[in-house]
């Protein structure tokens, strides 16, 4: 496997393949889910204020959107005309996910959309410099994923100040809300029983809440440092994954459009699997280079 020597990180071709295929599949899944909802854009936001986005979500417009998104996805996987394809995926993504938000559903797909614009930047800026392109298309993706965490930390500091973790005792209200959301969705009574257990545990673990929330805030705030070094970035990704698993367990919240791109871009598990199957454990150190 031939490495690309960048100014700070090496990125292999196979890393890009292992990243882009699951990434476009995650995008396509969220995208098709949105189209299947048949949103009618009752509360226009963003670009949907400029024109009627629902034209692309119904009738012949819907067929065009589906065909166009599939064509872009195939081209993306085949690395065909990437300058335009990444830009096209970004524009389509903004159109459809803005329609979703304009229907009152907030799935936090912003970073997922922007990922493709970031990759487009790499192709437009470094299209003639293959070495730089191979580095920047992954580096820009990592920047996009991590800036979301950084801004989330800034929001906490801005809205609640540095003492945000110490307000954490009231997180029980949010936990109760989340489990009630889950209950009202399918009337699964076990959700309410789980809520009672989790709340009791949290009430008995006030000091632990402060420690966990402090760690989460620090992890989010320094997420951009994952850009600097690839190995450090992978370890950082695993720490963020642990944070998401904790949030999912205690709050029943999993923001797929946030978590999956983070796993794919920062940890890149498929690349690690390829290394393992091709070379075995002893050469796993390849990913450290």
């Amino acid at each position, binding site marked *: 496997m031939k490495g690309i020597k960048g100014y700070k990180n090496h990125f292999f071709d196979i890393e890009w393949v292992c990243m882009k295929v699951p990434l476009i599949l995650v995008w396509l899944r969220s995208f098709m889910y949105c189209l299947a909802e*048949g949103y009618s854009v009752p509360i226009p936001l963003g670009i949907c204020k400029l024109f009627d986005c629902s034209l692309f979500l119904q009738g012949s417009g819907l067929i065009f959107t589906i065909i166009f998104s599939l064509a872009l996805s195939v081209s993306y996987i085949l690395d065909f005309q990437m300058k335009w394809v990444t830009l096209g995926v970004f524009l389509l993504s903004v159109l459809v996910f803005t329609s979703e938000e304009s229907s009152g559903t907030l799935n936090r797909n912003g970073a997922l959309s922007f990922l493709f614009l970031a990759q487009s930047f790499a192709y437009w800026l470094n299209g003639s410099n293959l070495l730089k392109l191979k580095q920047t298309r992954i580096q820009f993706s990592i920047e996009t994923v991590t*800036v979301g965490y*950084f801004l*989330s930390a800034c*929001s906490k500091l801005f*809205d609640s100040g540095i003492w945000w973790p110490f307000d954490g005792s009231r997180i029980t209200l949010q936990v109760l809300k989340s489990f009630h*959301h889950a209950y009202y*969705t399918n009337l699964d009574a076990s959700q309410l029983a789980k809520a009672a257990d989790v709340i009791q545990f949290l009430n008995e673990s006030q000091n632990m809440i402060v420690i966990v929330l402090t760690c989460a805030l620090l992890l989010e705030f320094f997420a951009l440092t994952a850009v600097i070094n690839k190995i450090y970035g992978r370890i950082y990704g695993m720490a963020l994954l642990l944070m998401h698993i904790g949030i999912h367990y205690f709050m029943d919240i999993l923001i797929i459009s946030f978590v999956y791109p983070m796993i794919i871009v920062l940890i890149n598990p498929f690349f690690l699997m390829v290394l393992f199957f091709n070379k075995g454990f002893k050469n796993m150190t390849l990913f450290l280079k």
Partner: protein
Amino acid sequence: MFSKIKKIIKWITSTFGVALVYIFGMLIFRETHPFSRFPMYSSFPNWAYSFYLTDENDKIIPLSSLETNGSSLGHLFGSVSDELSIPYGNFMESDEDLLRIGKRMMEILTEGRDLEADQLELHRKAFYYKNDSITGQDIIMTYYEGY
């Protein structure tokens, strides 16, 4: 000294350039897709709202039967309140506000759907701390008849 600063700026822009573009985009366009400051749980206020529907027999209707979920209904409450320019949270909404918000939410929820129930009631289940214990409050925001 000047060349050192120049080097640092060059390193920052080459390492975090795209992140900076996103941050500037967020500062200019605020919460406009794809930009966001991702304010999930940026504060832990002393209130939390959840919403549900009941039929004419006071039975809770699973939101999945309306192709939505509890979380989406919660977000819809926020979006509709913003649309109607009604400040919300911390129990500041008046009965009239809740009625207006509820009617609009029902409009969006039921648009283009064939509903089995003859009557729907939209409830707001709220939680807050009172004397160190969690208290619940259930309010009927609005109801629709004649489906």
